[in-house]
Structure formats: structure tokens, C-alpha cells
């Protein structure tokens, strides 16, 4: 009896993993509130624009999706890419590993113009989750390209802006837009959905 239930669980896990890989299931984190805010998790094939003020700790929230991509039940972690242009700063890998991110499956690139310098990354489907952190050169045309590539290759592209997004100035190419910031006194993360979210506001603890 036990062996049957174990194999059933394994089959369920494999089915779930397969669905995740093929993009029919959203990528959900271990934080229930975050999943709820994102309507079940990160949906594949989308460009998501985040407004996260630089240097205030808000980038911990997108890291949870990165960790989720590396915690695929019964399957290998998904390849992810982190692009930034913050010289002389560099990413501190132990902080990522502490969140459960598998460093073997995460690549980094330092690029001022990623659409140009890393074009093949977007036109091929190897990387399933791409984070563009604080890349200022990305304009509307670039967003159109990113959105198209995300949809075509079932990948998720997160564009992290260094300032809060203004609800009055839209971005038609981003399927979802949100603001996120950390309150160091209450230790809460504030999420404010601007476009594409079922809930407008939520405060979460991670």
C-alpha cells in the first residue's frame, strides 16, 4: 500500500514538474502570500516590470522566484540569468545561496546594453528566468522585443527598475507591473500592483 502511495506521489510530482517546465503551471514560491498576490505564482511567457527603489532591500522578493525555479520537484533546476550593470559592485553569491538558489544553474552577466550584447540569450530558450536588474538602457522598443521573446520561448523576464513605477505612465509591453519596497522598521515588504494583479496592495513578511 505504501509503495503504491509513494509511487503516486512521485508521479504527481513528475507531472507537476512537467507542467511547470511546459509553462502550464505558474512558478510558485514557498511564501503563500506572495503566490496569492501573483495569482498563483509567476506565469510563464511574461515580461514583468518591478519598481524597487535601489538600496533599500526590496530585491529580496524577486529572489524568491529565483529560488523557486531551482526547487523544481523531481526535476533539474531551471537555468536562470541575472544581468546587471552596477560596477564596481558585484553580486554576493553566498546571499543567493542562503535563499536556496543553486549557483550552478545561475549565470551572471554585466552588461550596459543587454538587448544588444546578450541578444542570443533572449532569442534562445535555454534560460527560463531572466532578471534585468537596474539596466537603464531598456526602452519601449526593447520592452516590445523582450515581451515577444518571453511569449515565444515561455520564459519569464523580470525587469527591475531602480525607482517606483508611476501608475500614470504605462508600459503596454509588460504584462504585469508592480512596486515593491521594504520597510526596515516593520520588517515587511510592501507590494503594490499597478497592472495585471488581482490584489492591489499587500504587505508580506519573508
Amino acid at each position, binding site marked *: 500500500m505504501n509503495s503504491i502511495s509513494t509511487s503516486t506521489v512521485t508521479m504527481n510530482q513528475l507531472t507537476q514538474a512537467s507542467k511547470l517546465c511546459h509553462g502550464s503551471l505558474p512558478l510558485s514560491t514557498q511564501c503563500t502570500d506572495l503566490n496569492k498576490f501573483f495569482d498563483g505564482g509567476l506565469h510563464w511567457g511574461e515580461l514583468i516590470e518591478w519598481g524597487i527603489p535601489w538600496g533599500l532591500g526590496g530585491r529580496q522578493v524577486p529572489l524568491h522566484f529565483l529560488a523557486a525555479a531551482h526547487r523544481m520537484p523531481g526535476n533539474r533546476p531551471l537555468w536562470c540569468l541575472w544581468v546587471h550593470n552596477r560596477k564596481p559592485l558585484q553580486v554576493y553569491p553566498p*546571499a543567493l545561496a542562503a535563499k*536556496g538558489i543553486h549557483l550552478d544553474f545561475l549565470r*551572471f552577466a554585466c552588461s550596459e546594453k543587454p538587448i544588444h550584447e*546578450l541578444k542570443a540569450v533572449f532569442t534562445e530558450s535555454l534560460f527560463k528566468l531572466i532578471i534585468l536588474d537596474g539596466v537603464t538602457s531598456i526602452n519601449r522598443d526593447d520592452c516590445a522585443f523582450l515581451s515577444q521573446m518571453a511569449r515565444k520561448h515561455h520564459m519569464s523576464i523580470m525587469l527591475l527598475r531602480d525607482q517606483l513605477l508611476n501608475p500614470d505612465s504605462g508600459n503596454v509591453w509588460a504584462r504585469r507591473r508592480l512596486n515593491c519596497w521594504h520597510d526596515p522598521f516593520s520588517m515587511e515588504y510592501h507590494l503594490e500592483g499597478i497592472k495585471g494583479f488581482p490584489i492591489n496592495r499587500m504587505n508580506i513578511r519573508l
Partner: protein
Amino acid sequence: MSKLLFFPDQGSISSFKHESEIAFIAVLGSNFTYEALQMISPNVMQWNEQIWIIDLRSCLSYWSAQAKKNNTSVFDYIRGICDRIGSASGYYASVAGDPWQCILLLGVLEEKGMQGFISIQSNMGRNFYTYLSWQVWQRSVKSLIQYLYANNLIRRSKLIQHEQKLSHMLASIKKLGIHYPSEISDMPAYQIRRRYGRWIAAVWGRTYKAQNDQQEYNLDEYEDIIPWVAYREKIVPTITRYLDFPLKQWDQIQDYLKQDLHKLSLLDSFKNTHRIISLEWLVVLQNLDEVPLTIFFRHPYNLRKEPPHFRTALLQMFFQYESYQFKVAADQNDDILQETAIIGWQLKITQTLEVSDTSQQLFDDSNDLDALIALENRLQVPLYSYQHYDSWVPEESFVIKNTREYATAINQSMENQYQFKHASSKYHPLYIYPRPQSFKSESKSGVWRFVERVMDNWWKQPSSNTFRDYYQYINLDKNLWLYQDSSGQWYTHGIFA
């Protein structure tokens, strides 16, 4: 026109200078031909009729991955290849971080009749090198002079001058009764220079480079005592294109390039087992200027696998062409990119790596890693990843790795990752400064949270700091990772982004 070289990063190449003990191999053996040496590195030099020097630096990461795959060290792996090539007739091989030291060690091995593959870093190699005789040193210096003369790097007058200085030095040594060069290995190069001239001093400086590096005397000027003259095959796969009309647009240029790459891949001189390390694209402009653009591939590139689109080669050619245009615009202080008309070009395969049957599988595996390697060849900027190191000093707790070095690590258990997860604090920032910045703030009001105390590398010079107390400092517009050292100085080390 100066040659444009954009990658591999100069930093990554120069770093080998210090740490790689197997950067160069000198071999002597009848079976070591140019074709056989192509299995080890594309960059080889013929020292004289019998001796070859191999520069391993451009493909060391590849061999490192291969060695890991076979659960052995790079040294043992390459020794295995050399054994296979030279075992029938016997061979001498010396390994060192410097080509000149390779030549000297090879001379000692030959003198002692010690066949095999010996590193200068090993106990045996060090002992042999210590007993380097004046005869071997003299013979090697003479062969160096001959090498320079044969490659038109010095004139006859210089050749005579160098030989005279060498004779003077050896006569003095004989008078002084010094039996081995190692007896005066700590003699500063500038003293040799004063007596026997700059060139002999340079050679001396390189003979005992490690000792001389410790001295105050600057040895940078000695870097080129052996200018590298890479051996080239007589028939280099080359395609020349004369255009009927000048071309400016990349879309038009790339159509012709595709045809030429296809022709290049079909040439008899380009073998099926060849993987390209670098191509030279000699562009002829309308004003008849020739611009040599060197196209490097991060990973050995299989040209025959990519027809008809040749996407990888064309992308890298485009990046080089565009960089050249930017450079021209910058030289002319012009903000607008002027497309230069091209009237022809020559495409030449300058460096290849011969892939043997045993190593071919790393290229031909159809898995994620293979896709990643192919993808990296198509990018203008490199991708990199990190690996943990067991160190409590934050900036030493990780190291940057390239994809090939990860080739085997990828299948290792994930447990190590998660062990680290438990060991590391969650109060670590996302971004850090490679070198902590001095923290100066008029007001230190805000929230201070003590994170941890770590011991510093107080035993390493010039640091004398014993510990660091890390704090998280939060105010209205900052969330920083600071530390105070044992002398009370404050530093910003990271940003909680």
C-alpha cells in the same frame, strides 16, 4: 592599422602568469610533430629543429574540464596525452609557468637522461632545476640567441654582442669558482646588468624569476626575452573575397560572409576534427586600408556543425566589426557611427584545436551544458557563475568560474549548496564591493543591527586587522552592510539592494 583584440579578457589571460604552473611545456622527441601537438594546444612554437614549446594558457580551462571529467589532474591528463604521442620513441618534457624555465629544465633533463614529463613545481623538477649546470645554461642561452636571429628578431651585430657578453660572464664565473647558477640565484639582476649588459641581465632575471620577483628591481622589462613566434602551417585555411561593388550594410556583408564561411568549412586544409579558437578577418576598406579583425571564440567552435546560417561566427564577426566602427568614430570624435565601405576581405583560420576521439564527446553531447557553451559563443559579453569557497572572509568565500570548469561540477550533489545555506546568515547583502569602501557619514543616525563578527586574515601582509564586526545600517535612503575593523575604522562592504 593596429590589430583589434577584444576577448578573451586580458585580465583572465594575465592571471595565468602568476598562478598557472602548467602554462608552458617544452618537449623534445621525434614523435612530437606540429600535427601531434595540435591535440594539446593550438599555440605552439618551434624552438629549434628538435624542441617545441607549447602555450597551454588559451585552452587550460578546456583541459581542466576534461581532467575533472576523468577524475584526474590537468597535469596527469596532459602527461597521458604526451605519453601516448611520445612513448614509442621516448621523449623529454618540462612544464613551467615560463617558457625560458621550460627550456632550461628540459636541458637538465636531457643532460641527465631523465625521460618523461616533469614539472618545475614538483620536488623532482625543483631538484633538477637547482642542479642546472653552467654548461646547460650556456647552451640554452646560445640556443636563445640563435632562435632570435633565426626569426629575424635581432641583427647579426646583436648576435655577436650577446655572445661576447655571455663569454665574459662565463669567464668571470669560472674565475670566481662558482659551480652552479643556483649558488648565485639570489644575485639581483641589476648587478648582472651593470657588468654584462641589459640582455644578459634579462635572461638571468628570467632564470630565477621567482627569486627576482621578490626583489625591488623591476623585471617588467624582461617580459619579452622570448618573443613568441607561433608556428604556422604552410597551408592555412583561407578564403579571399573581392567584391564587385563596395558594401556598407551589415545585412549585405553577412550574405557574402555566409558563402565564404561555407567555402572555408569545405576546404581540404580544414579537417573534420578541427575546432576553431580564432579567425582572422582582414577587411579591405574602400581607401585600400586593411583592418585585421581577430575573432575569438570563448569555446572551441565547430564550423562544420553550423551551415548554412553560421550564426555563431557571424555574430562574433558583427561584434568585432561594430566595435571597430565605434573605435573609428571615437578616434574622429564623431558621435554618429559612419559605416565604412568594404571592397573585399580575407578570412583565415588562425588557431584551431584538434579534437581527438576521446575528447570529442565533450563537444558533441546534446545536453543543456552543450547548449550553454554554444550560446556563450554567440554573446558579446561573457556569462559567468560563482562557486563557494570555505572561507569566513566574505570576499574570499566565492570565486568566479567559467562554464567549462563547471562542466563536471553540474552533476554533483546539491547537498553542498544547502549545507552552505544553513551555515550562512540571512543578513547578507545582495551586492558587495570587491574592496570595502571607507564609510564616512556626518550623521550616523538610523537603525544599527549587529550581524556577526568574523576573523580577518591578520597573518597576511599588509593587513594587520584581526577581526571585523559587521552591522546592518538602515536609515531613510540606505540599507548598508558595514563593518568596523579592530582599529575602529568603518567600511561599507555591501548594499542590501
